[in-house]
């Protein structure tokens, strides 16, 4: 699932480690989510959204609404 996590993180000048500590997950998890290799659970997605003060759909792209290739 595509997301804006890397952009949001860069805007705040946070490293992956910084974000991982704020979310209480591993740096590996942040990396996997940013690169779209892992879709977070709903509780973690809410946690990410709360951290950035955004709605989930403002961070993660709804796969059903992604343009078909």
């Amino acid at each position: 699932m595509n997301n804006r996590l890397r952009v949001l993180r860069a805007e705040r000048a946070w490293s992956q480690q910084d974000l991982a500590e704020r979310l209480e997950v591993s740096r590996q998890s942040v990396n996997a989510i940013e690169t779209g290799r892992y879709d977070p659970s709903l509780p973690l997605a809410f946690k990410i959204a709360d951290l950035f003060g955004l709605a989930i759909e403002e961070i993660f792209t709804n796969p059903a609404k992604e343009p078909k290739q």
Partner: protein
Amino acid sequence: MPEEEMRAPKIGVPVVSYVISLLASIFIVKTYHPATAIAVLIFAVPVAALIWMVVQARRAKRFQGDAACGNRAYQRRVVALALVYVALLMLAVWLNKSYALTGVPAVIVALLPALPLVGMIVAMARLIIDTQDEYQRMLHVRQMLIATGFTLAVCSVWGFLEEFGLVAHVPAYWTFVLWCGGLGIGTVYNESRS
């Protein structure tokens, strides 16, 4: 390297190298009975692979940070149980050779080495429960599912080959060893997806 491109250190290749080189060394030494010095050289290969595996595992732990807490507790439990297993196996073999045990004492002695192995299975269950990081937990579960599928497939195939007298009988406790080998395949699969 930019942080965005950072990946967890790979451990799959060292794990597979260790398992294959260890099995190959045992096979060579058991089959050809080389001189002690040659045998030591042969076993130096899996030892080197083991050192490589440990180094990569430590790097991976540093990469994972605090989320690896469940892993550390698991490793402590498994190492402790492995030591208990070796001690109980030696004790059981000694008791079996020294005394003509029958009945309940024989059953108890036979079960001694199995208990720490059951403990290892419980430790693996605790790893899943204790891992707070959901991505890490997913990796553990996927690794164990692959190991389970691999074990069931090999045991099914082997069972029929044995039934038709085409291969030798293998004691059932090798299933656990096979499953642990399957964990190595699971590790490689996880890394290929990361």
